[in-house]
């Protein structure tokens, strides 16, 4: 396909990525609406921050596969949704080299966060039955 459209405006190759991103922002938004709001309510209205020590987290809060799965799903959605969102923001306000740099940092941070979060959720032993 021509790099330039009929007249004037340069045509970046799309490859459908923008469509996918737009779509995914919406889907993950719906998912987050449930996940993030439930998570926040649980942490603040059902329990109180003062009781959420690390012991409590491992023994009570994450003492079930369901809640671990739930929080991991949340993490994944947040990282993807937030990452795509920040990508838009970055592309809006930065140009050229600074954009590339910022995006690279963003991807890196996104990956690190995802890995760190996953390690926590997965690696802490389930104190099942204790």
């Amino acid at each position, binding site marked *: 396909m021509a790099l330039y459209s009929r007249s004037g405006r340069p045509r970046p190759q799309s490859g459908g990525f923008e469509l996918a991103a737009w779509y995914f922002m919406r889907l993950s938004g719906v998912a987050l609406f449930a996940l993030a*709001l439930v998570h*926040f309510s649980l942490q*603040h209205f059902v329990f109180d*921050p003062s009781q959420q020590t690390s012991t409590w*987290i491992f023994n009570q809060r994450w003492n079930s596969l369901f809640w671990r799965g739930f929080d991991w799903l949340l993490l994944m959605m947040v*990282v993807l949704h*937030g990452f795509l969102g920040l990508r838009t923001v970055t592309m809006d306000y930065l140009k050229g080299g600074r954009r590339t740099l910022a995006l690279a940092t963003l991807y890196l941070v996104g990956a690190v*966060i995802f890995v760190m*979060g996953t390690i*926590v959720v997965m690696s802490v032993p389930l104190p099942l039955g204790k």
Partner: protein
Amino acid sequence: MLLRYRGSEGMVAWAFHRISGIAIWLFVLLHVLDIYLAGGNPNVYDDILKFYASTPGRIMEVLLGAALLYHALNGIRIMLMDLWPSLTAYHKQMWYANWAIFVGLGLPGAFIIMRPALGL
């Protein structure tokens, strides 16, 4: 430019959405770090927790909740318009409806979070 142009509801809605999105993202960074510590170094985590439970910490959580709630509601508003473009005619009404829900849910929520700090 943003400050020179007098946008109406739609522009404010968008600015808040963007700001809240970035704010939540920043908190998520923090939150993942602290949870990671809960696995790796529980003692440090428990110290951080003290901050969360303190009054400034609780104010931060209220703000976080507000950002999340606003972003969630406005996200729904946007998606409704995406699905039914004719709803754009009512975008301002939908935004005000968001604020009604925001206040309706947010005030009691903020109260619950702040209750320990207020000594109630």
